[in-house]
C-alpha cells in the first residue's frame, strides 16, 4: 500500500507578516511548523502503515509539500517520525498560489510518485482555513473524497471505513480505494521521532522538484494561475457588548428576542 500525505508548513506563531502587495502571508521558514491538521493525518497514515507492516504487508508513506526551500526541514522531520519518502515541490513559479494553483502543483507531484492507494490531507490549514485542498485533489484525480474524518476504522480489501462528520452528526462511511481523506485535528496525535529516526532522517532523500520537473502547466500555478483575488486583509472586529435586562422573565425574553431579530435582519 502506498499512502501519500500532503503537509503544509504554517507559521508557528499567531503573529504573521502579510505581503502588502499580494495580500499573502510572508513565509520565510523561520518558526514554521507542520499544520496541526496535517500532523493528525500523517499520524493516521503512520498507524495504518504500522498495522499493515505488522501483517507482513509492504506499506510506504510519502509526505508531499509545496513550499519554499526551508520546508525541507519539515519534511526531514516527517522522515524522522516515520515517513518513507518525501517530496518537496519548490519553485519560484509556485509562489503566491491559491488553493486551486496549489492543488495543481500537488497533483502533478503526486502523479510523479508511485500510484497512491490513499491520499490524506488535514481538514484545513490553520493559516488559510479554506479546507479546499483535499476535495480539490479528489477532483483532480477523479477520486472519492471523505472530509472531516475523525477515525480510520479499517483499511483493506480495496476500501477504507472511516468515522467522519456530517450534517447529521458523526457517521461511519466506507469508501473504495484509492480515495482522498481529509482529517480532523483530534483524530490522532503525531508521534515524536526517536533518536534512531532523527539519525535516519539526516540521510533520508528529500526529493526537491520544480514546476517543470513535475510537468506543471505554467498557466495553472503560482499567483498568475490563481483565480482567487485577495482584495483586502484585515483583523476582524471582535468587539462585544454586554446588556443586562430588567423586568419579568417574559419581558426579558421579549427583549432578547428583539435583539436576536435584529441580528437576523
Amino acid at each position, binding site marked *: 500500500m502506498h499512502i501519500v500525505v500532503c503537509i503544509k508548513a504554517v507559521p*508557528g506563531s499567531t503573529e504573521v507578516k502579510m505581503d502588502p502587495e499580494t495580500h499573502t502571508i510572508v513565509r520565510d521558514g523561520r518558526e514554521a*511548523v507542520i499544520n*496541526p491538521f496535517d*500532523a493528525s493525518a500523517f499520524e493516521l497514515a503512520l498507524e495504518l502503515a504500522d498495522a499493515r507492516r505488522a501483517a507482513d504487508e509492504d506499506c510506504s508513506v510519502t509526505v508531499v509539500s509545496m513550499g519554499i526551500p526551508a520546508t525541507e526541514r519539515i519534511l526531514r*522531520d516527517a522522515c*524522522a517520525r516515520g515517513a518513507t519518502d518525501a517530496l518537496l515541490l519548490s519553485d519560484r513559479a509556485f509562489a503566491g498560489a491559491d488553493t486551486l494553483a496549489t492543488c495543481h502543483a500537488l497533483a502533478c507531484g503526486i502523479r510523479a510518485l508511485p500510484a497512491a492507494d490513499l491520499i490524506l490531507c488535514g481538514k484545513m490549514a490553520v493559516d488559510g482555513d479554506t479546507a479546499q485542498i483535499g476535495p480539490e485533489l479528489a477532483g483532480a484525480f477523479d477520486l472519492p473524497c471523505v472530509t472531516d474524518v475523525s477515525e480510520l476504522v479499517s483499511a483493506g480489501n480495496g476500501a477504507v471505513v472511516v468515522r467522519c462528520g456530517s450534517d447529521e452528526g458523526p457517521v461511519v462511511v466506507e469508501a473504495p480505494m484509492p480515495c482522498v481523506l481529509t482529517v480532523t485535528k483530534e483524530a490522532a*496525535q*503525531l*508521534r*515524536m*521521532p*526517536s*533518536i*534512531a*529516526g*532523527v*539519525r535516519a532522517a539526516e540521510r533520508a532523500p528529500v526529493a526537491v522538484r520544480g514546476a517543470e520537473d513535475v510537468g506543471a502547466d505554467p498557466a495553472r500555478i503560482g499567483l498568475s494561475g490563481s483565480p482567487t483575488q485577495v482584495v483586502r486583509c484585515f483583523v476582524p472586529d471582535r468587539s462585544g457588548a454586554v446588556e443586562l435586562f430588567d423586568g419579568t422573565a417574559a419581558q426579558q425574553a421579549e427583549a432578547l428576542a428583539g435583539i436576536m431579530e435584529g441580528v437576523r435582519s
Partner: protein
Amino acid sequence: MALIKPLSENYDEYRRDESRAQGNAETISFPTSEDEVRAILRELHAVRTPVTVQGARTGLAAGAVPTGGHVMNLSRMNAYLGLRRSSDGRFFLRVQPGVVLSELRKHLRARALPARDWDSESLAAAQELAQAPEQIFPTDPTETSACLGGMAACNASGARSYAYGPMRPHVSGLRVALACGDLVALRRGELKAHGRTLELTTESGRRIALDLPTYVMPQTKNASGYFVEDDMDAIDLFIGSDGTLGVITELELELMPAPAATWGVSCFFTTEAAAVAFTQAARPALGLATAFEYFDAAALDILRTQRENSTAFSALPAIDPEAACCIFVELSGTSEDELLDELYRLGELLDETGGSEKATWVARTDVDREAQRFFRHAVPESVNMLIDERRRTDPTITKLGSDMSVPDDKLADVMALYRASLSEAGLESAAWGHIGNNHLHVNVLPRNARDYARGKELFESWAVRVTAMGGAVSAEHGVGKLKRSFLAVMYGENHVREMARVKLALDPYGQLGRGNLFDPAYLEGGA
C-alpha cells in the same frame, strides 16, 4: 488594625496548602507593601501572637499551614519593583514576594515587565532588556503557580536544578522583616560570617550576633534546615529558612540568558537497573544536559490507565507496553547543530547501558515539548487524583511523598533500598523525580490507614539510611511541619537546638512559622 481580619469561614482555604494538611488560625492579613507587613508584625509582636507566612500555598511540607495565631498571606504583594543591569551585562530584577513564577516567565518571554512607578535607572534597564537576548529565571519547580517568596523560603529546585542549582544562587538580594517589625536588607557578597559567627545590623541600627549551627551540610541537593557553612554569606541563612527567621518582603533575582535551543528526550528502559546505569554514564558525558527526570514502572502504568480512562488525559502520548521506566533528559545549547551532536552522544550511551535509540521520544518542536511537559506533569497530578479518590473512603489517609537525596555514588544503593523496603512492606507506590540529583519522590499510595502508618514508618527508616549515606532528608520541598522529625534524625538533637537558638536570636518569642523545622518545644522559654 484594619489590616488584620478574623479568619472567618470565607478564608477557610488559607488553613491549608498543597500538602493537603489542615491547620487553624484566628486572624489573617493580606499586606500589599513592606510597610504594611512591618506594621502588622509590630502589632502582633507586642502580644506575641504566632504568625504563619504564606505565599501561593503550593508547598508540599505544610510550611504555610497555620498552627493558631495569625496568617500573613503575601499573595497580594505581587509588584515588580525595579531592574538593574550590571557592568558585565547581567540583569537583576527586584520583585515583591507574591509574584508568581508563571507570570514572571510570561513577562520575561515577552521581554516586557510591569514597570509601574519604576525609577529612571530601572526604566532604562527595561529598555535594554527589551533589546537583549531573552532572559530567564532558571529555577523550575514543577508547580509554576508558586510565588518567588515561597520559593526562596524553601530554597525550591525542580528539574533544571541539575544544571542551575537550587533557588539560592539566583537570589542576589533580600529584604526581610523580623518578627518585631525591624528590617534586615541583604545583598549577596556584602555581609559574610566569620567562621560560624554572623553579625546582622537591622535598619534601626540594632546589632544581632548569631552563633551559627556547627553541623556540616551534606554534599547533595539539600533543603533541610538552615544553610550554614564557614564564612557563609548572610543572605543564605534566610534562603531556605522555611518562614521561621523573618518575612521576605522583597527579592532581587539574577536573570540569565535563555538557551538558544532546548530539546527534550524521553528515554524508555525495560529495567530500572538500565536506567540507573544510563544516569551514571550520562552525567559526566553529557555537558549540555540540564535535567534528568525519572518515572518508574508504576508511574508509567498510572499514565497508561489515565490515557485509557480519562478524556482529560487522552492526549498523553502512547507508551510502549515494553517500557518499564523512563528518563527524561533535557538538552540546552547554543545551536541546534550543537544539540544534534549531543543527541547522538546520548543515543550511543543508551545503546551502551541497556537502553535503545529506538525507544526514545525526541521533542524539537513546541508541540512535542508540550506533549512531554504534559506527560511529566500528569504523573503527580494523577497520583493526587488517585489519593483524593481513596480519601473519600478513608479521610485519614493522605499522600506520602519522599523528598530525599543522596550523593552520586549512592544512587544504585538508594534505589535498591526503596525497592526492597517497599516490597517487604507490601505497599503500593509510584516514584518519579530528579534522578540526575539522586533525588526521587517516592510516593506511597496508601489504600487504608494501616498502609498510611506503615508508609510513615518506612519514611522514618529511610531518613536514617539516607543520612547514613551522606544524603539529605529534604532536598527541595523544605522541612516544613511534615518532615521536622526527619531533621532531628539528619542532624541530631544538639544541632537542632543550635538551629532553634539562631531562630530565637532573631525571633525571641518564636512567633514566625511556628512548628516549621522543629517542634515548638525547642522554643519554649524564648530567647
